[in-house]
Structure formats: C-alpha cells, structure tokens
C-alpha cells in the first residue's frame, strides 16, 4: 500500500529543491562585482579535498554517531584496499570495484 501524499511534505520537498539551487548558486546569484581577496582565492584550493574528506571520513569510521570500537569493520578493509589500488593503478573505477570486492564478502558474509 502506498501512503497518501501530504501537502506539507510536498511543500517541504519543493523547499529542499530551492535550497539546493540557492546553496549551489549562492555566490553567483548577484552579479555585483566582488573582488575576491587573494588569501581566500588560495584557500579555496584546499576546499575540494577538505569537503570530500569531511563528507566521507565519518561514513568510514563511525557507526550511528559513534567512533567504531572494533577493527572488524568491513569499511576499514575496503578503504585500505581502495586506496592501495588507487596508488598502484591510478584508477578510480578500480578503487570502487576493488573496495566493494573487499567490502561485500566481509560485510554480507561475516557481518563485519
């Protein structure tokens, strides 16, 4: 059975879509000239890698808001295998495939 559609939920979802647009475009909504200070320009070169790390590291070493307390976690081995593959072969597709090849047996098979 499919639940009924709720108007407020629809409004919330439209609001979320607007937030996607507003945040992704925030600093180019206005065409007012805005010279960027040199330090900020330099600093932004560190932003991409910092953003990626901030998003993925908690997903690798935390479970339900807590730092993992065991090494028997499939994610740790998958990450190690993926990074090792990347530095060996320089391939991102390989990083995903090798990582999942390590992750799935440990996670689904052993329950890690």
């Amino acid at each position: 059975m499919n639940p009924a559609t709720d108007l407020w939920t629809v409004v919330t979802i439209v609001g979320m879509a607007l937030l996607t647009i507003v945040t992704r475009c925030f600093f180019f909504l206005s065409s007012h000239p805005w010279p960027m200070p040199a330090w900020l320009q330099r600093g932004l070169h560190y932003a991409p890698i910092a953003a990626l790390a901030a998003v993925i590291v908690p997903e690798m070493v935390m479970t339900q808001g807590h730092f993992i307390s065991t090494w028997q976690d499939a994610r740790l081995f998958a990450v190690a295998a993926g990074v090792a593959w990347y530095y060996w072969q320089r391939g991102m597709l390989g990083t995903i495939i090798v990582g999942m090849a390590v992750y799935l047996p440990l996670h689904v098979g052993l329950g890690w």
Partner: protein
Amino acid sequence: MTALYKHPEFRLGARDMMVVAPGMAAWGLMTGVAMIKSGLSLVEVLMMGLLVFAGSSQLAALPLIIAGAPMWVVLATALCVNLRFMVFSVHLRSYVMHQPFWRRLVSGYFTTDPTYVQFTKRFPHPADDAAGRRAEAAYLAGNSALGWANWMLASLLGMALANAIPVRWGLGFAGILALLGILSSLATTRLRVLAAAVAGSVAVVTFALPLKLNIIVAIVLAVAVCLLLEKPFLEAHARKANTPKKNSHEPSD
C-alpha cells in the same frame, strides 16, 4: 554559437564522470531504496528524487520528515548539509560570472560534489578568453549531464526495485568509495593531504553538532590551517630543496 556537446571538452568531462559513475549509481540506487522504504508516498519520493538532486540532504531529511518534524527543522537541516555547496559557489564564481543569470543557475544546480571537484581539477584557474570559457562550459556540461542522468536512472531503479534490494548489503558504500577515489586523485601535495586529514578528523570529532554542521566546520578549519601553514611550509620546503627556482612548487596545486 555551436552546441556545447560538440566541443571536445564535453566528452572529456563525461569521461571523467564515467569512471566514478558506478559508485555514484550505487549510492543513487540506495537513496532511491531508502526513499521508498521511508514511507513517503510515490509522488513525494519522485518529487524528492527528481527535484532535490542532493543525495546527502535527501538522506538527512528523510527521517525528519517521517518523524513529523516541523518544516523549518527539515529545511534547516537540508540547508546545513548543503552549506558546503556555498563554499563551492565562492570557488566557481569567477568561472561563471560571465554567463547570464539563468545560465549561472543551471550551471550551479547541476554541480554536485564530484562535478565541482573534477571541474576545478581540470581547470585550476578560470579562463580569461572566450575559447577557454567555452572549453570550461563544455566540460562542465558533459560532466554534469552524465552525472545527472546516471544519478537519476540509478535513483529511479532503486525506487522500482526497493523491495528486491537488501539494505543490509550496504551497496551505498560504493558512493563513498567513488568519492574516496576522487579524493585520492586530489591528494597531490602534502598540504592537500593535510587538508584532508584535518577535515576528516574534525568532521568525526564534531559529529555530534546538530544539523550536520560538522561538515562545514571541518572544511573551514582545514582551509584555515592550510592557509596558516602554507608560508612556513613552503619556505621550509624551499630551504630543503636548496634551489632558488620556485616553478616546481605552486603553493596550492
């Protein structure tokens, strides 16, 4: 003005996205599954999937909507999860300001994490001539078009197969591995490795902050630490290398 998709950079952008597409697809798939399983109606799920186009904000909002949280709490959470996009938009500003308003909105809307990272990697500095800008626009279009189609198809497939795909397999982890691959490709200088280490640790330590604010705190701190260390670090590096030439060590690239 000929179509952007004929430009060679369009294919290059699509090709760069192609290598991470399987991981992003697995993530999109599991986002589709999660949306259906959450108990939202099909109309709500389709709207969220097709319009919001921000996986992390969707996953953060789902439990709140289901629990009947007030709208402002849901939207505040989505905003905070999205704050990193505002950092991206500061960075992308000088690449898109020559475009008309609506065009900028389109460019921004379709710029997801992998697209932003790959685009700024391909073009470390904004072009100042028409040909260069066109190349940038073509790359961005190719990269984000493939990224969008890949994410949407995977999301829709996840919705359709929600009851056939076991959540406990954790297929969505492939998305994390895709971002890990991109992260590894960016880790080309010691300061960037430091940025990743600082951001990752701060994001874990401050995880308890409400509204996923840990992500933006981590980015800002990592950038600040690298800016502070940049000068002493480079000076030490130059001394060690004992060479007056500085062409081999750009501060941040």
